[in-house]
């Protein structure tokens, strides 16, 4: 069904297309690199009550959605979602029937196909993620290979929980960055490390109210808001690490600097903790392992300790509808900053950011489509090395 100015949406439920006036429908499709499922949030004006009456809004129904631009069929927001919740407020005044605005919320259809298992694997983490997602007809899969082969126990979990709770936190890349498992708004399954995502090609966007007439409207940032994670999460004091010698049981101690996460002890079993049991990035730092075990047992803690530090500096930005921008992509932003001599852009805040989360929105009330992004980075690369921020988060 055509929405406005070359935009279209196709919603099928139980194989039949839902055709209603564009202003009766509002929805957003949302993804995030931190959540394995993307989601569908909608509001349908069921004025007569007939849509509900024929069970189209019943939890468990599958809504298959395609949302895009008619002239760019390569980049379409799409996916199938299982309705999880439905809610209907009081009917409009004057209405003779029980009808009105129905709010629906659904997860990606893969949620509905989960089954617990106690299987085991002896392979790379990336192979585990690939194997467990093979049975679903994704539009695509983006998986970065991990290095270590080790035993993995699903432990009576669903594949999604196993990937999210066990495989992902224990994976790291050659470039020593953590992994993220998520379904994006293009119906692609992703098992990617931060470095792979951040080094991807980036589109340019401008927040430039003073010079907007010179820019392509599709590259403009319409709304922007910035915040940063507090340094309260950073442990500013030194930490202690203890490790145990297998032969004698003796405990040896090391003192770590505030910007050390883990150090490989000289030998044998090691324990790391600090006074609060939490590290600089709010992850529990007490770990246990053997120096002689595989490298991943040593390194995943070190890498994943720093997971949150990659998202210290964040913006929310509002753009014209752009279905090519989904979680895991990158963008360059340029923030207008006039000087005495010429128009220029802020060095402090401009730069490359990762799309942490995206929402692709159709508003029936305003008959407009937009894309809202949460973008983030660790910090501005031009910060000198002796600044405390950089010393802590490296």
């Amino acid at each position, binding site marked *: 069904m055509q929405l406005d100015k070359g935009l279209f949406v196709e919603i099928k439920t139980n194989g039949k297309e839902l055709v209603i006036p564009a202003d009766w429908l509002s929805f957003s499709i949302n993804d995030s690199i931190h959540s394995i499922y993307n989601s569908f949030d909608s509001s349908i004006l069921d004025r007569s009550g007939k849509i509900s009456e024929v069970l189209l809004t019943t939890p468990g129904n599958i809504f298959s959605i395609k949302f895009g631009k008619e002239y760019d069929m390569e980049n379409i927001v799409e996916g199938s979602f299982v309705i999880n919740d439905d809610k209907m407020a009081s009917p409009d005044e004057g209405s003779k029937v029980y009808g009105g605005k129905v709010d629906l919320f659904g997860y990606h259809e893969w949620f509905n196909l989960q089954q617990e298992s*106690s299987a*085991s694997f002896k392979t790379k983490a990336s192979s585990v993620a690939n194997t467990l997602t093979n049975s679903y007809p994704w539009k695509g899969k983006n998986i970065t290979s991990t290095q270590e082969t080790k*035993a993995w*126990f699903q*432990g009576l979990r669903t594949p999604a929980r196993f990937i999210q709770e*066990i495989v992902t936190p*224990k994976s790291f890349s050659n470039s020593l960055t953590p992994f993220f498992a998520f379904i994006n708004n293009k119906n692609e399954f992703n098992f990617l490390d931060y470095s792979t995502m951040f080094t991807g090609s980036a589109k340019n966007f401008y927040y430039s109210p003073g010079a907007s007439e010179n820019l392509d409207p599709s590259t403009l940032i319409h709304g922007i808001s910035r915040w940063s994670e507090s340094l309260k999460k950073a442990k500013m004091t030194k930490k202690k690490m203890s490790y145990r010698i297998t032969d004698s049981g*003796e405990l040896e101690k090391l003192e770590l600097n505030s910007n050390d996460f883990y150090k490989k002890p000289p030998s044998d079993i090691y324990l790391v903790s600090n006074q609060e049991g939490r590290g600089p990035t709010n992850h529990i730092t007490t770990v246990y392992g053997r120096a002689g075990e595989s490298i991943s047992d040593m390194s995943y803690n070190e890498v994943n300790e720093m997971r949150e530090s990659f998202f210290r500096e964040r913006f929310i930005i509002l753009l014209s509808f752009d279905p090519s921008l989904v979680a895991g992509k990158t963008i360059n932003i340029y923030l207008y900053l006039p000087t005495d001599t010429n128009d220029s852009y802020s060095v402090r805040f401009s730069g490359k950011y990762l799309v942490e989360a995206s929402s692709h929105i159709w508003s029936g009330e305003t008959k407009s489509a937009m894309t809202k992004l949460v973008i983030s980075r660790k910090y501005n690369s031009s910060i000198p090395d002796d600044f405390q921020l950089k010393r802590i988060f490296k």
Partner: protein
Amino acid sequence: MIPVELFYGIVEDNNDPLEKGRLKIRLLPEMEEASSDHLPWLEPFFGGQNTKTTAYIKESYDIGAPLWCFFYSSSFTRGWYITGVFLETPFNFDSIKSDLSSIAEDEVGEASNISFSRYRNGTVEFKDNSSGYMGVYHASGSYAIFDSNGGIVAYSKSNIKMYTDDNMIELKDTAGIVINSGAGTITFNGSGNTLVKYSELSRILSAITSNMDARILSDPISGVCGPVLPPFTIATYAPTLTTDKINMNADKLETS
């Protein structure tokens, strides 16, 4: 503090290739469908070293035995087995009490006071925390115990063998020693009833022999022996009585 998670498992393999007392464990239900090759070898939580040197303890567990285990996390990267799982039906104190009552050296106390280990073949190690009665009851019926008075009792359905190299086995008492057997009884119960040495016995028997000869030679018909009949040859008696001390033995020796 190290947070841990508790799991139930069974022994998949007890033949540790490193011979360190580890067990290969299949957690249930978490590893029910896991390949046996992937299962983890867990170290014992109890036992191990109680010094920094060479004193250690190891329990044995059969394949299939249910165990409690714990891991640092449910990713199962590192864990230990703690102990066997209590199974109500096979646990039978009455059978323990019945076995121990056959010892008849002491009374088995209340279940609350008895600690015991029962082996797969029926042998029982036990101790009564109240009376101090303790020992081992073998499935064959043999036993070795300390009774509640501190007495030591050993009973064997088979042999009791005692060996010593270049030392002696000493039985030492103040009241007496009794040796009972089907062939008779020997009692040593005081300094006036000491066991006769072989040399002493030989001396006594020689003295008896000499005495008997002397008595014969001193008889009025000394030198003549037997009836005098034609052709009237008179034989002269020469003492020939000797004592076969080498082949002498006593069916029964009682010194009291």
